[in-house]
């Protein structure tokens, strides 16, 4: 090979097909005779449907069916393989949140279905909703994930600590809001179901759908080769996906169901809001002696959701005494779900804000405080890290940002009526790799096709897997094609948790080994082959050839296949999650973030002027897509810090701002140049050396901004988003 294909900023292999409009997203599928389904949603948050009148809707032009809890098929409440499945829809008259689906109208056209949906009249029996995290009537679920953990004696250490910080922080509910509205197109052919769906995990959606519909798994096929963004919204098998399949069976035609933007706020999850209390004790010279973190987060009434908010406090700093606990508060709100760095996004804000408050209390540089308490080993288990370059992140980030120019005094740096603030935060994300399979086929013309059910939600999976396969097979990029997003391909985990690259890359490694072995098996007794009798460990690949390590002799894939009259060879491979209880703990990515904010002294408006990230992501397969991941996440982090807030009305449980006009996301004008610097080397846990980087953009960003706002103004905002009325 003339040059490395991995690590380079290779352009996206799917760029051309996407920008030319040829990539078929789920909404682009219109099978012949497709009918359209529209949801009818509850306008109360708690109670039940006392009576439904669907006669006007049924009589409306074009209507094919109106499905309610009174005529819906019985569905199975499934326990999913890839996390809890939301409760199946339309199984009773009970209402547990505003915007809950209470009927589906199927008609010839979308407009007819929409108009008929308006004609469904509902008589409610109302109950008083509980929608506030602090409402004493709400049910508390303690240690919901079995992840609460502790070391030492936190209460004693806090009582003895010369310096203490005890604070409560709040983060708002956020809604994922991918640009592409979620949609499902479901078609039955006899008992075979094909579903085009906005999912981040075709394998998981297939098994969930099979379970919920009580269908054999092999009879369901889920396709999601392209997705208009997900940010975690595609990590659960939502009710609308199930309903599209139910409706298609009921009307005996393919059914398309596209959520409206407003429905996206109630139907595909959200980042739950949190109320977190941090207690930190330290010596006067800045040694942390105790960290106590209790994280409350909201949950819907009859669902489960994995979101470990206090995790960062278990692994963040070298404290001898740590206790971290999660509590879920059940409320009459829609089902939550994962959203960009679930749990860590909120937990990091509380921990890193509290660290900043401690630094101020101690009169110490916030960066110095973090370096002084760096966790050289896992603070609770004592295990060594598989790799940890957080110190290098701090060093590089501080240097690139110019942290040394910071005057420690709050409100000391100003330009005219603009208050300037510098703030920083560190962050980590957990290591995640799950069981995954992949397939490689090499054809006689020297091309490779890689297949896996895993998908590319826009992050660059097509591209990095093309690069990785090219490297593993010794082929140029143009000779490798990657096929993704189809549950009929080898099973893969969902694209989430910064885990797919490591999972699929490891499976690819295994598949490649099996494939080379198949080639060597083919020539085992072939006297014409220089590779005769070679073992997979005795060879390497280069320029489309398999070559002996010892004497450099070898031959190409094409030569072998041609001589043996084979069109192609295929091999599958798989990889599992790393074993637990290793002496070394598999370690995810790290980052240090440095933010400069400008606050208008009179008007309270906050603008981020600069944000520098230094990240340790293990081996970076593609600088361009990796940078894109972190930049995109940082934009989300700026949104979480300053704008994003899904407002639920306390009285009604209705989401008060469920539109793009009212729910603010950051726009271009809010985003300054975002610098990203990669530091550190590969991680030994996976054969590719990757750690994942997609989740690293959000956590740390809100805390760095909030800490910079404090430095600019002297006002500590402990509630996200930071809005101007908190600074007037």
């Amino acid at each position, binding site marked *: 090979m003339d040059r490395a294909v991995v690590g380079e900023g290779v352009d996206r292999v799917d760029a051309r097909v996407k920008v030319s409009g040829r990539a078929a997203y789920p909404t682009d599928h219109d099978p012949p005779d497709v009918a359209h389904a529209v949801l009818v949603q509850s*306008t109360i948050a708690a109670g039940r449907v006392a009576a439904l009148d669907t006669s006007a809707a049924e009589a409306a032009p074009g209507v094919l069916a109106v499905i309610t809890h009174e005529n819906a098929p019985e569905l199975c409440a499934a326990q999913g393989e890839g996390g809890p499945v939301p409760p199946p829809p339309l199984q009773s008259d009970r209402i547990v949140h505003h915007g809950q689906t209470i009927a589906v109208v199927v008609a010839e056209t979308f*407009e007819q279905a*929409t*108009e008929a949906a*308006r004609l469904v009249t509902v008589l409610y029996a109302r109950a008083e909703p509980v929608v506030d995290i602090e409402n004493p009537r709400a049910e508390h679920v303690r240690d919901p994930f079995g992840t609460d953990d502790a070391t030492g004696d936190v209460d004693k250490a806090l009582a003895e600590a010369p310096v203490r910080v005890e604070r409560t922080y709040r983060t708002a509910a956020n809604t994922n809001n991918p640009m592409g509205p979620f949609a499902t197109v479901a078609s039955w052919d006899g008992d075979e179901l094909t579903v085009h769906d906005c999912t981040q995990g075709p394998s998981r959606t297939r098994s969930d759908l099979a379970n919920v519909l009580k269908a054999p798994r092999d009879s369901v096929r889920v396709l999601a080769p392209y997705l208009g963004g997900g940010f975690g919204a595609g990590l659960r098998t939502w009710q609308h996906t199930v309903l599209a399949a139910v409706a298609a069976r009921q009307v005996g035609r393919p059914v398309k169901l596209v959520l409206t933007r407003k429905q996206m706020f109630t139907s595909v999850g959200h980042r739950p809001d949190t109320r977190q209390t941090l207690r930190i004790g330290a010596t006067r010279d800045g040694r942390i002696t105790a960290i106590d973190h209790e994280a409350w987060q909201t949950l819907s009434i009859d669902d489960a959701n994995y979101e470990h908010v206090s995790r960062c406090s278990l692994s963040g700093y070298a404290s001898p005494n740590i206790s971290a606990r999660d509590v879920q508060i059940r409320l009459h709100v829609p089902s939550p779900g994962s959203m960009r760095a679930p749990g860590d996004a909120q937990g990091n804000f509380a921990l890193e804000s509290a660290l900043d408050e401690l630094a101020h209390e101690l009169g110490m540089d916030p960066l110095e405080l973090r370096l002084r308490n760096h966790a050289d080993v896992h603070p609770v288990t004592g295990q060594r890290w598989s790799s940890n370059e957080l110190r290098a992140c701090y060093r590089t980030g501080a240097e690139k940002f110019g942290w040394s120019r910071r005057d420690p005094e709050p409100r000391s740096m100003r330009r005219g009526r603009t208050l300037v603030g510098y703030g920083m935060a560190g962050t980590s994300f957990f290591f995640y790799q799950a069981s995954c399979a992949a397939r490689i086929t090499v054809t006689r013309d020297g091309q490779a096709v890689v297949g896996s059910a895993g998908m590319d939600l826009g992050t660059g999976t097509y591209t990095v897997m093309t690069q990785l396969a090219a490297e593993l097979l010794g082929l140029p990029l143009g000779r490798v094609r990657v096929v993704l997003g189809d549950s009929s391909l080898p099973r893969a985990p969902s694209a989430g948790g910064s885990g797919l690259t490591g999972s699929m890359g490891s499976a690819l490694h295994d598949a490649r080994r099996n494939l080379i072995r198949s080639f060597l098996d083919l020539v085992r007794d072939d006297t014409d082959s220089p590779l005769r009798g070679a073992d997979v460990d005795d060879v390497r690949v280069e320029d489309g050839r398999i070559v002996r390590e010892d004497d450099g002799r070898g031959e190409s894939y094409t030569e072998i296949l041609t001589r043996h009259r084979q069109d192609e060879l295929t091999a599958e491979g798989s990889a599992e999650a790393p074993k637990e209880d290793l002496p070394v703990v598999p370690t995810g990515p790290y980052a240090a973030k440095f933010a400069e904010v400008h606050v208008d002294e*009179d*008007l*309270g*408006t906050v*603008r981020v002027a600069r944000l520098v990230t230094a990240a340790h992501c293990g081996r970076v397969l593609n600088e361009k897509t990796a940078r894109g991941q972190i930049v995109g996440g940082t934009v989300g982090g700026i949104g979480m810090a*300053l*704008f994003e807030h899904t*407002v639920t*009305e306390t*009285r*009604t449980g*209705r989401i*008060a*701002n469920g*539109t793009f*006009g*009212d729910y*603010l996301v*950051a*726009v*271009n*004008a*809010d985003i300054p140049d975002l610098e990203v610097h990669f530091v550190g080397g590969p991680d030994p846990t996976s054969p590719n050396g990757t750690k994942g980087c997609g989740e690293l953009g959000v956590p740390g960003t809100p805390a760095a901004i909030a800490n910079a706002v404090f430095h600019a103004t002297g006002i500590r905002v402990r509630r996200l988003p930071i*809005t*101007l*009325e908190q600074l*007037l």
Partner: protein
Amino acid sequence: MRSFTYVRATGVDEAIAEVSADPEAAFLAGGTTQVDLMKDEVFRPLKVVDITRLPLREVSGDDDTLIVGALTTMEELAAHDVVARRLPLVRQALLLGASPQLRHMATVGGNLLQRTRCRYFRDPSTACNKRDPGAGCAALDGFHRMHAVLGASSWCVATHASDVAVPLTALGASVRIRGQGAERMVPLTEFYRVPGETPQVENVLEHGEMITHLEIPLLPRGTRSGYLKVRDRASYEFALASVAAALLIDGGTIRAAHLALGGVGTVPWRVPRAEELLRGAAPDREVFAAAAEAALSGAVGLPGNGFKIELGRRAVVRMLSILSEES
């Protein structure tokens, strides 16, 4: 969306006749608000009369007045050289509104008539006196951070969302209205109606009447003017508070002053009392603070929007300070 008939108007009088004859008919111009409202089932006309091709798109005038056809788009007006030279506050307000895409579609007449962004008005599942008179106002004990602190009533606290209406009101601009009767001119200060007990009535237009032109008095040469918009994000958002102001300062004295607020009122909020305070005074912080106090006089906050009263005052002081420092 309810099915409706679409008619393309062939002339101004024909369009007026078409809409006047049918209580369920409505004009359609740029449609940037109206089509949203139709999709959201807030506005359900049975007939839509498209007026976008009518010859009401020219900008003309003399040295004192600019006459703007109501179908001129926001971008066209912003780009007009007289607006750029003589009406910076109007140009700034136009360019700080919406997005370039919307500004190329939205007309100036439509902008003046845009409906409130109140989520309760826009969600038929909630109570709204403006949409459904007598139904009540869910915003009062709901989420009302964006709502009005001036000109509100217990029937309605919805904010008037237009940016450009704020400087136009400050300048004393008028609209030319044509209906089946005689044409009339109405100053914007008299065009808009505060909600009182009838929030469904937002202005003096009768059904079938059309704004055909806008007449904007030009500022005397040497006048400094500007538009300050305070909002959560840096672009593409409605104002939490905005200020349009113009000051003619000569020899250390304010000779003429125009001042109006947006984002805080149920209508674009001109403040003659503040203008009086400014006229004849030296342009200093003291008089700006007094003007700001006068500008927010009578403001009433709800739990979620009370901050806008102080924000509005500070925005007035900032805008006037900027203008006085430009010399």
